[in-house]
């Protein structure tokens, strides 16, 4: 069992989890959006909401299916590739993930069928209930899995038994509500809402550029931009709080994010840009603002901040990866704030639906949520290295006793299959989005109610 197998296993996990994370970060937000649309339709009876609901439901079905199948891969990969981690941390992370299955996955899956196919079988109120349950399921799912991940980042409430396993020390509350959990959960859920808003906004803008009178496009663009304008500033605030929490519990990760190779006893600079040189342990061509890092992180310009020079080399995360992905995430966050403000200006000036520059920018920002989510995820996960359970279990001591050739084969297969399957899926999603929301679709309740199960119900009008 050499280093090769370990590196391949890490690559495989990174590849499959990154792909997987794309879908929930979209479907968490989209499920809530659908819930709001159906709720508004039930309340106001306005057809535009029902049309938008049907339009986005088709997209949701494709995205959700891909999330389900890429998620099954994750639930088995802990055992196949990280068996030592599973044995040792299983008594803690296992129950958290089992609760995710019991309280979230079944809820989503049980009501998804009714949500997708049941509108003519159960009546509008029960159907709305099914939509709410799916949305609730996505949120509960995020809560448990983020709790699990956060425990790996900031483990608390455990003891280590004679077999070397992490076991609950007593109450489960300190395990579930570990120090980084509330911050990470808020940050991830907001990221999901932003990601979805940016996609919905881009689709609305795309169709507004072609026909600014399309009522569906107007409504979705307005709702999405409203959400971006509200969520982007909150996200920046939450992200900052999350960073302070990380400084308290994982200071080395912050050093890597900030690119602080050296300790700064009298106030650390904020490095805006630069090129990390891991061999020489310095940031080349650094563009920095003196003392700003101390001001942000410690709220005191002269506060001392430690650097990686105080950390043994073998306990350092890969600085360049963390440094770059963090900047990508923050940069995109600022761009989202800019788009939100721009849309507010458009709204005030009454040009929200007739400002091509705004629409083009919204289209360009469509995928930015996904990029920011993945970049942020890489920052926090690579920043946790060289540990799986931070401070206690090394990644190099977590993996399965597999032959490198077996892992190489599976990794190659995953790459090929994912590109075929999820490439096709993304193409189908884009094709659905390229179609303008039809203004005259029949409304769910207008379709005659049929006796359940006897005659084929056309459910949603075809378009």
């Amino acid at each position, binding site marked *: 069992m050499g280093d090769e197998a370990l590196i391949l296993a890490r690559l495989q996990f990174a590849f499959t989890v990154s792909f997987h994370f794309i879908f929930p970060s979209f479907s968490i937000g989209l499920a809530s959006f659908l819930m709001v649309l159906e709720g508004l339709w039930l309340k106001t009876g306005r057809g535009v909401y029902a049309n938008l609901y049907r339009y986005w439901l*088709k997209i949701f*079905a*494709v995205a959700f*299916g891909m999330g*389900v*199948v*890429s998620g*099954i*891969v994750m*639930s*088995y990969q*802990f*055992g*196949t590739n990280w*068996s*030592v981690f599973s*044995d040792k941390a*299983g*008594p*803690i*992370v*296992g*129950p958290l993930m*089992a*609760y995710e299955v*019991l*309280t979230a996955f*079944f*809820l989503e*899956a*049980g*009501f998804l*069928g*009714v949500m*997708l*196919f*049941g509108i003519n*079988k159960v009546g509008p109120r029960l159907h709305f209930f099914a939509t709410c349950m799916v949305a609730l399921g996505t949120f509960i799912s995020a809560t448990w899995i983020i709790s699990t991940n956060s425990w790996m980042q900031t483990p608390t409430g455990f003891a280590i*038994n004679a*077999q070397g*396993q992490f076991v*609950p020390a007593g109450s*489960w509350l300190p395990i579930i509500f570990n120090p980084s959990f509330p911050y990470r959960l808020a940050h991830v859920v907001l990221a999901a809402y932003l990601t979805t808003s940016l996609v919905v906004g881009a689709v609305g803008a795309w169709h507004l550029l072609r026909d600014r009178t399309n009522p569906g496009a107007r409504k979705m663009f307005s709702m999405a931009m409203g959400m971006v304008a509200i969520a982007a500033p909150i996200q920046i605030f939450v992200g900052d709080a999350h960073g302070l929490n990380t400084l308290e519990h994982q200071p080395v990760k912050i050093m890597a994010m900030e690119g602080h190779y050296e300790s700064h006893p009298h106030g650390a600079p904020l490095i805006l840009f630069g090129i990390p040189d891991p061999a020489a342990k310095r940031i080349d061509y650094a563009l920095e603002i003196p003392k700003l890092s101390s001001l942000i992180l410690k709220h005191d310009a002269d506060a001392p901040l430690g650097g990686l020079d105080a950390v043994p080399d073998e306990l350092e995360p890969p600085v360049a990866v963390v440094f770059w992905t963090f900047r990508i995430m923050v940069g995109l966050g600022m761009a989202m704030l800019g788009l939100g403000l721009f849309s507010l200006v458009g709204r005030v000036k009454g040009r929200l639906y007739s400002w091509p520059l705004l629409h083009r920018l919204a289209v360009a920002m469509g995928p930015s949520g996904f990029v920011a989510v993945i970049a942020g995820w890489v920052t926090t996960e690579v920043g946790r290295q060289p540990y799986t359970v931070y401070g206690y279990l090394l990644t190099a001591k977590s993996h*399965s*006793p*597999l*032959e490198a050739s077996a892992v190489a084969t*599976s990794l190659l*297969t*995953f790459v090929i299959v994912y590109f075929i*399957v999820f490439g*096709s*899926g993304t193409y*189908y999603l884009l*094709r659905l989005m390229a179609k303008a929301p039809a203004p005259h679709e029949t409304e769910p309740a207008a379709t005659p109610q049929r006796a*359940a*199960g006897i005659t084929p119900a*056309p*459910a949603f009008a*075809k378009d």
Partner: protein
Amino acid sequence: MSYSLDLATVWAFILAFAIFAYVVMDGFDLGIGILFPTLEVGDERDQAMNSIAPVWDGNETWLVLGGGGLMAAFPLAYAIILPATYPLVIAMVLGLIFRGVAFEFRWRDPGHRAFWDLAFSLGSIVATLAQGIMLGAVLQGIHVDGRAYAGGTLDWLTPFSMLTGLSLLASYALLGASWLIGKSHGSLQERARKWAFRLGVLTLAGMAAVSIATPFLAIDYWQRWFRMPGVLFTAQVPLATLVVSGLFFWSLRRGRERLPFLLTLLLFALGFVGLGISMFPYVVPQALTIWDTAAPAGSQIFMLVGTVFILPLIINYTAWAYYVFRGKAATEGYH
């Protein structure tokens, strides 16, 4: 050996229930995937697909519960069985990916429907074979050293595991065929009935072959099945299987629509009891028992508290979802 009702035993039964629920529920929708190439393009395939489209996702969730629950309640078993069957697990999840996305993609892209239908079918076949071979791999024993798997990448590959793989293929296809009898009409129902006959024969042959081969594996299975007075109990399993299979063929001949599926479920239940007799209380035969691999009580109690409330709730709303989509399936999607 004590069979008192302790935590590990309770969890073994809960997980056995989850695995059984998975096997019969995903079994019939995987079975439809296996039968798919024999169905006519057009109405037959669309109707078969629509009969499972609203429920397949829920069915597959039991697999995630099986995996997650094993990691949570018996982490050491999870950490040994999965590396031991590595290529099979990877093949299974890849198969499930192809068949899972096909549900949506085949409607989204009529130009490539033939491709996604093939993906649906091959994915189902690969996933089923992988599960069946895994069963054989566990039954024939796994090389354990300390707290880790100590064998090679292909240890699972034996004639016995091939036999269990092929048997499961026949059994899932049988579940799919008998499900379709109840959910379809016309030519599809006729076809499903014909297949149910043939697959019924094949499944019983598979069950018999596995049952005969198992006691000859170099493990104490012989003792478990044929020692007095236990044999008075264990003999009931093959006897009941004979009775149920007789009823099954009778119900097919009488043209019953729902009974064949229910009897197939019973057949699976009996096979499952047989596996229980062979294995309990081992998770890795001859190497590790449920008590060797159990998570500490603190973990098992924490999960048990939630499970006793949530599992009945899950069963209820799952039953409701099946009830909403009762009756014959339509030939068109919601698209």
